[in-house]
């Protein structure tokens, strides 16, 4: 009983304990329920905040997620010559690409491909380079510019060519090839720096001008990128296209260049390392600008091979350099008209002042030689230009001083970086005592004296010489330019009245022109070989033979000196500047044949031939000629000249 009672009380104890357990449990469970309710309510309110309160913001973000704007690359504008011949264009380019990743046996696939479409050694080398240097997911270009037939052949055989795909791209093509390489320049894929500056350049297929017109007119040629709005999924796969704004092709550029004239000049130059510039001296249009030898600009689009690059670098004729604007040469005697103008301006001579030439000129203990060691005797300005007497110009330069010469040269465009639409345009140098002192040297009068005949420190480019000739011929400050029209909008520069008269007394210009007339047309003139009389039009010019190596006195006095025997590199340059017609100047030409040795026999006839070609291609002359012949079976009214040389009247002096 006692035991039972104890048991009962224990039982009671247990029951009490159990009930307090349950009480505590219930209380605490309710507390937990409250907590759970609170947390779930908080979550619901957060949901409300996200979906209702801030919903608009997220809806906007969702739209951005879905709609992606993709830029469309604009086609690059084309470049034509003045008669509409294409000199730079885009060509659709079907290329066969090979993705190394997607094929197991690379060489096997290439081998089978070459059985369908022949690959030459150059291709193999390029492919091998890509295999060695590219990452495996980047396609290797096997062959581009495939024809339809070739494409079909590849498509049909695609099961045996794993990893080979056909890709459509555009390629910049230069139909005229090396002919206008220096003028038109070239394009290349943009580099990282370009892309950082302008993100549009990251678009595939975009090319950036790297030289010449392609570079300076890059903004005009590039056009405006279009865009297409597409709905995409999270990996960028396009689901639908929403809107499309087409890209706007870059503007077409019409050059002032006459590419056929350019071609004719190039064949006249032949293998010489030379440069020739033909300007319309009324408005500064560059009709032709040849720098020989040249290079193939299309090589730059795909990448220049190392061997090719080395070959260019090792060629002492320097094919990559545009000699017309970047080549600097002592102008030699072609500089004399500028010295004469400077002297006339500061009145250190009059046209009739005579200076005696004994064949040499002594100053300060140094003897300066005339090219004619027997001397010219007493000469006035007209005769001095005609005979290109050195002694006369030594004295004139000494009297006039370098600062005055420099000032006149500035007006004439010598020693000035001309604003032509090209790259690497060099300013050259017309030295002054101030310049010399800046470089820590003393200016000697002797320096002035040799500058008088365009030697010493004087360096100019062929384009400057042509510009200077044009300005003397017309008395207008024409600037040479290459762009005639953008999208058929002719630039104001094409109008001769656009150009201001030069700040030099027209009478002085006339005197110098008459001297240059005498050089070519009068008996014993130094440039007699350049004489023409085409349709009654006369040419006036000036020779220049510029030494590149000082001839030692001993050698000169030995009497056996003949510069033609020197190694090519040390022979003097042959230069000629001219304009025609003399009484109504239309064209100015400068020619430089590097190491051509003799201006009178090399540069002058070349310049004459160029001038003849130019005059014959002149639209005004052509009409006249057609009219004279009376029968025109060619009704083509455009200015595009017929390619073959028209038969000239017998009166033409160049047929002698």
């Amino acid at each position, binding site marked *: 009983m006692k035991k039972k009672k104890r048991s009962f009380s224990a039982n009671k104890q247990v029951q009490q304990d159990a009930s307090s357990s349950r009480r505590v449990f219930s209380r*605490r469970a309710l507390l937990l329920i409250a907590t759970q309710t609170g947390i779930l309510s908080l*979550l619901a309110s957060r949901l409300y905040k996200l979906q209702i309160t801030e919903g608009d913001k997220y809806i906007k973000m969702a739209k951005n997620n879905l709609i992606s704007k993709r830029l469309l690359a604009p086609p690059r504008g084309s470049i034509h010559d003045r008669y509409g011949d294409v000199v730079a264009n885009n060509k659709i380019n079907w290329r066969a690409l090979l993705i190394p990743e997607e094929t197991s046996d690379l060489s096997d696939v290439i081998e089978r491909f070459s059985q369908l479409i022949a690959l030459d050694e150059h291709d193999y080398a390029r492919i091998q380079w890509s295999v060695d240097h590219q990452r495996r997911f980047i396609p290797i270009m096997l062959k581009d510019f495939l024809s339809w037939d070739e494409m079909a052949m590849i498509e049909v055989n695609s099961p045996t060519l794993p990893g080979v795909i056909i890709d459509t791209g555009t390629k910049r093509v230069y139909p005229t090839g090396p002919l206008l390489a220096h003028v038109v320049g070239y394009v290349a894929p943009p580099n990282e720096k370009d892309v950082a500056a302008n993100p549009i350049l990251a678009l595939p297929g975009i090319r950036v001008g790297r030289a010449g017109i392609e570079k300076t007119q890059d903004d005009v040629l590039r056009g405006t990128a279009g865009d297409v709005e597409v709905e995409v999924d999270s990996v960028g796969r396009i689901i639908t296209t929403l809107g499309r704004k087409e890209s706007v092709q870059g503007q077409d550029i019409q050059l002032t260049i006459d590419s056929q004239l350019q071609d004719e000049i190039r064949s006249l130059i032949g293998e010489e390392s030379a440069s020739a510039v033909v300007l319309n001296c009324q408005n500064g249009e560059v009709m032709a600008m040849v720098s020989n030898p040249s290079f193939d600009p299309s090589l730059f689009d795909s990448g220049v091979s190392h061997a090719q690059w080395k070959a260019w670098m090792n060629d002492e004729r320097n094919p990559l350099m545009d000699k017309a604007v970047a080549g600097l040469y002592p102008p030699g005697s072609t500089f004399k008209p500028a010295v004469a103008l400077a002297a006339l301006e500061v009145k250190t001579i009059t046209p009739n002042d005579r200076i005696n030439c004994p064949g040499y000129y002594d100053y300060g203990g140094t003897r300066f030689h005339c090219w004619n060691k027997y001397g010219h005797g007493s000469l006035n300005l007209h005769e001095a230009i005609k005979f290109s007497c050195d002694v006369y110009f030594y004295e004139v330069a000494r009297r006039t001083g370098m600062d005055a010469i420099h000032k006149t040269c500035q007006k004439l465009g010598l020693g000035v970086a001309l604003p032509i639409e090209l790259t690497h345009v060099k300013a050259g140098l017309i030295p002054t005592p101030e310049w010399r002192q800046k470089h820590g040297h003393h200016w000697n009068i002797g320096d002035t004296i040799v500058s008088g005949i365009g030697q010493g420190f004087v360096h100019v480019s062929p384009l400057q010489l042509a510009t200077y000739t044009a300005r003397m011929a017309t008395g207008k400050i024409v600037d040479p330019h290459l762009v005639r029209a953008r999208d058929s909008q002719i630039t104001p520069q094409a109008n001769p009245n656009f150009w201001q008269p030069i700040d030099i007394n027209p009478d002085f210009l006339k005197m110098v022109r008459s001297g240059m007339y005498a050089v070519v047309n009068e008996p014993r003139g130094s440039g007699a070989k350049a004489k023409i009389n085409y349709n009654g039009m006369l040419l006036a010019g000036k020779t220049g033979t510029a030494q590149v190596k000082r001839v030692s006195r001993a050698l000169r006095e030995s009497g056996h000196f003949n510069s033609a025997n020197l190694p090519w590199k040390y022979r003097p340059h042959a230069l000629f500047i001219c304009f025609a017609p003399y009484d109504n100047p239309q064209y100015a030409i400068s020619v430089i044949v590097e190491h051509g040795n003799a201006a009178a026999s090399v540069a002058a006839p070349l310049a004459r031939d160029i001038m003849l070609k130019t005059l014959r291609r002149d639209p005004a002359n052509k009409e006249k000629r057609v009219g004279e012949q009376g029968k025109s079976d060619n009704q083509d009214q455009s200015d595009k000249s017929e390619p073959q040389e028209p038969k000239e009247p017998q009166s033409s002096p160049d047929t002698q």
Partner: protein
Amino acid sequence: MVFEKRLLRAEPNLKILGKLWRINWLYVALICLLAGVGYLALYSAAGGADYPYARPQMMRFAMGFVIMISVAVTPLRFLAKLAWPLYGLGIALLLAVLHMGHVGKGAERWIIIGGIALQPSELMKIGLVLLLATWFHKISWKQMGNPLRLLIPAFLVLLPVVLVLKEPNLGTAVIIACIGASIFFAAGMRIWLIALLVSPLPFAFEFIYSHLHDYQKARITTFLHPESDPLGAGYNIIQSKIALGSGGMWGQGFLHGTQGQLNFLPEKQTDFIFTMLSEEWGFVGGACIIGLLFLLILGGMIFAIRSKNQFGRLLALGLTMNFFFYCAVNLSMVMGAIPVGGVPLPMVSYGGSAMLTVMFGFGLLLSVQVHKDSTFGMEKAKEE
């Protein structure tokens, strides 16, 4: 014989059919409703198709349903006997996973047994709840006042927590710890002791953070500043918020949620399923799902309170807390309220082992409900 007698006394007057009758079918209906939501969500996640998510999930639900009902009519005493084996199995699997688990997302959380990918921590949670319920069942209110009595159960909680931490899976470890803590709390742990243990917690957090793995730290950083890495680690949070936000009041319509359907939404069939649903069904739909979850949680807690034995109460409470933590962590995660951690939304997210363990848990919960009047365990005390 003695055992049989005791069993009969424990669950008086109940045969299988009677038990089936006693099951709270309203609660079962809510479970089925949630599974239905899951079916629709997975149907949409597949872009409007049964396959590959919705149908397999439903087959598992059917399997889970059978398990649930079977467990629901199983006597509590028998279930209590499962506590140690389940707990032991859970620990063994956790150890196994540490050595040979399938590596995914920087954590060894899965183990493949007989072709079924199993998450041992799921099993572990149920085993732990069962074990703690049986353990505390034997401890009277008075005995609870002795802190030493809590040492062994505390160890039972910490062991799986440490193992899961080592996997490493911080989220699950915290959930296990919280489930354990809530059972301790409900079992009558003294308030002063709780206060004593909670006070150094801030320092503990400091310590834990310094021992977190880099990817866990990255989660916390990107959670605090999701915009700092919009395409990297912050992508999930931002995309989830965008998808939720673009749902608005009524949603974009079933199968028309642009963010989800266009795959901007990451892991939409698993962790971010709620986001996809709320984008398509709007705030109204999202709130309804939260309401449904709340009803299931509330029901579980009521089952717990109404049970007349401590084992049933603690078991029901622990399982309900488990379910609640699942839901709360997942919802907070997709709404950008806590750092992202791979916690699915129970029944709705795609996943086989989770579905089966959740259904097993519901079975246990219903068993508590069915056997609420059982005085199971009282006799034990009486006999001593």
